[in-house]
């Protein structure tokens, strides 16, 4: 599990790689939330391009960050999910809440 956050003038991108499961989600949550609260970005894109596995723990992770971004007056997006991760996202109907590109 690796996370790399870049902030470009309020439009931030968090590139995740590895596997997202319940075990890893805790750590990811802490890191991303610390960034959101400190940097207060307008937009945060979570790039899933490097994620090779994700179960429903990833849904909770994305929903939770989306909520926090809203509370901070910003917006969350999801980028580049691989096909099998897209299926988990679709099952959760997450595209009704978060834009997926």
């Amino acid at each position, binding site marked *: 599990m690796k996370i790399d956050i870049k902030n470009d003038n309020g439009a931030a991108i968090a590139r995740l790689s590895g*596997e997202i*499961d*319940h*075990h890893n*989600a*805790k750590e990811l*949550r802490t890191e991303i939330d610390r960034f959101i609260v400190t940097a207060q970005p307008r937009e945060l894109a979570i790039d899933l391009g490097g994620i090779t*596995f*994700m*179960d*429903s*723990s990833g*849904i*909770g*992770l994305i*929903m*939770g960050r989306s909520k926090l971004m809203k509370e901070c007056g910003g917006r969350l997006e999801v980028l580049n999910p691989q*096909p*099998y991760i897209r299926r*988990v996202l679709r*099952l*959760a109907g997450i595209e009704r809440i978060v834009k997926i590109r």
Partner: protein
Amino acid sequence: MEILNEIKFIMPSLSVNEGAARAVVSSFLIQADPTVEELSDIRTAVSEAVTNAVVHGYRHKKGNIELTVRLLPDRVIYIRVKDKGCGIENVEQAMEPLFTTAPEEERSGLGFSVMQSFMDKLKVKSTPDKGTTVTMRKRLSAHGD
């Protein structure tokens, strides 16, 4: 029912073992030569069931989780995840999409929905204070060669 090959994997309810359980499934199923999508479906379903045992079943006390994987005739994969944790009062309700008793841990309530939609069959047996057993089956597509 004839069993072609069967493994059992027993682990304590530590979250670090969720990944190990998936790896066990992948490495065992190589011999059945599943498609990338089939393997990913099964890995995801196993991850959900094992995570549930860690997060819910053994919420208040630690214990062992037993994962059984069988290769059955006609390319059927049988999976069983068993815990001796707190059990489920109302299984029907628990299986409803979005139902969760752990929203504060950002559980989405979609674990059973994922298992249901990624596998062909799902059965949940649970007794309060005794534990939960989830069994799933999926038939792999016929071989290319």
